């Protein structure tokens, strides 16, 4: 009864609050919070100069550049095509639309290792698509980008789609009545409505790409300074028993991820407000 008395804001006749919350907190504590705190406590065994050295050596900096750069570029491409895909799925009719709609979620359901070996085979020099391209995709930084596009693909589509479905068509009719052409109606009426969702989808795809490991390591070639992503570097350090070094880099990635999580939460709150207002 302790939790119920101290935390509950409003009296409730329903039972089970203490049991449910107690179990949930215990479980989160054991599975998530205590292990995560281990990462932060481990970095405290390093002195400040050691921490800086571990997290800003040239090889680590190169991996940040690749990870953040490729993630950003992939999320950008996904934002562009994700908006088109969402638009096409909501507004138009075409053959096998339901199948296409269902398959958009494939990157959520397909194990990353499977996606990794499939993409590597396709975009390799002798692969189905790779052999038509004049430049290298597999075993290069471009391969990292391709894998990150794959895993980030559903995020933008699935955040924009429901908002687009709710757009009031009467607004577009009003715009047309007032003399706006289709492009003006889209940029001035529809786009502002879906923009918060589009940004949220972009941020989600970006955040997912930052931590991605499974699909990337097959296609990247993993050359230090060139095509080595940060999560792989963490594993490399672990395999060399450099636990503190691995954890220091992990903390940098964790902090970036948490900052992104805050940004995403703020974006979603903004999107809700905008949707409620329209």
């Amino acid at each position, binding site marked *: 009864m302790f939790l119920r008395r101290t935390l509950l804001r409003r009296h409730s006749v329903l039972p089970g609050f203490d049991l449910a919350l107690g179990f949930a907190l215990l479980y989160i504590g054991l599975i998530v919070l205590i292990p995560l705190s281990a990462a932060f406590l481990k970095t405290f065994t390093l002195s400040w100069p050691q921490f800086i050295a571990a997290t800003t050596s040239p090889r680590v900096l190169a991996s940040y550049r690749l990870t953040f750069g490729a993630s950003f570029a992939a999320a950008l491409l996904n934002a562009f095509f994700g908006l088109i895909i969402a638009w096409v799925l909501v507004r138009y009719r075409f053959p096998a639309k339901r199948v296409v709609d269902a398959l958009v979620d*494939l990157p959520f359901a397909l194990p990353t290792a499977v996606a990794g070996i499939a993409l590597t085979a396709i975009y390799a020099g002798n692969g189905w698509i790779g052999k038509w391209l004049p430049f290298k995709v597999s075993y290069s930084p471009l391969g990292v980008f391709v894998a990150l596009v794959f895993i980030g693909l559903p995020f933008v589509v699935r955040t924009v789609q429901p908002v687009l479905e709710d757009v009031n068509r009467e607004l577009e009719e009003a715009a047309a009545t007032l003399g706006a052409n289709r492009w003006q109606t889209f940029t001035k009426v529809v786009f502002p409505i879906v923009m918060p969702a589009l940004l949220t989808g972009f941020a989600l795809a970006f955040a997912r790409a930052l931590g991605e490991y499974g699909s990337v390591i097959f296609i990247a070639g993993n050359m230090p300074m060139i095509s080595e992503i940060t999560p792989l570097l963490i594993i490399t350090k672990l395999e060399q028993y450099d636990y503190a070094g691995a954890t220091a880099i992990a903390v940098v990635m964790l902090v970036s991820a948490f900052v992104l999580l805050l940004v995403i939460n703020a974006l979603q709150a903004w999107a809700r407000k905008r949707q409620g207002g329209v």
Partner: protein
Amino acid sequence: MSAQSLPGAKPGLAAAAASEGVPSVPRRKSTDEPAWVRRLLIGSALAFLTLFLFVPLGTVFYEAFRKGAAVYLAAIVEPDALSAVKLTLLATVISVPLNLVFGIAAAWCIAKFDFHGKNLLLTLIDLPFSVSPVIAGLIYVLVFGLQGWLGPWLHEHDLKVIFAVPGIVLATVFVTFPFVARELIPLMQAQGIEQEEAARVLGAGGWQIFWRVTLPNVKWALLYGVILCNARAMGEFGAVSVVSGHVRGQTNTMPLHIEILYNEYQFAAAFAVASLLAGLALVTLVLKYVVEQRVKASMKVQHEH
């Protein structure tokens, strides 16, 4: 909802004009794009999806069967592959029910009660989604590894977590942690607490309320969450890779087995095992579609009541 209040075709200006006796030339509605724009958009959407989605999916099955059914079967019934399948199933069978119970408990307090710190709890539930799988594995190494907090104690008592099955289960639990809770919370929040309160007033006990009122209302969303949780549990690679130690036939899950085969240039075998997981992904998508239709239908019924 307003889109549904306009039945079928949207009555644009052209339609209005046509009904007033203006010669009815088949005209484009004011809210439609020209046909060429439509075709261009559909074309580019499908081209993008083909390049990044359909071709990779097709490749998995094509490469798996390219060397014939015999090679395919041999790769799957090979002892190391079978033990990888078993370990994957074991980790899934443990982690999915754990996260199911957690999801229900978390959704019950968040959706049915108003309490201090609710938003913080919601953020904590989402936390594992924003942690890289590699880091998820790393933190368990820091706790249970030989140099970790509990390492020396575990070693003394001859217990192994890292590079053994318990570590794989823990890593799987971590990465699949939010799925069930995430599906249940919004639905249960939307459903409110009136039905449960009514049951309570009529004298039902806590478990009775849960089994007879709450659970029937959320069963499809629950199933959906379990499906997603299951797919991720069976396919997890990064987190499991850090804690597994890659001992063939012992601590190898299916995704790790694929990696080993691939790195040994046994492409046909790697894609054969991969095709099992790709098949599972397709089954997941079909189930997801079915369940989504059910959730939509049950939401509609509740709105009408």
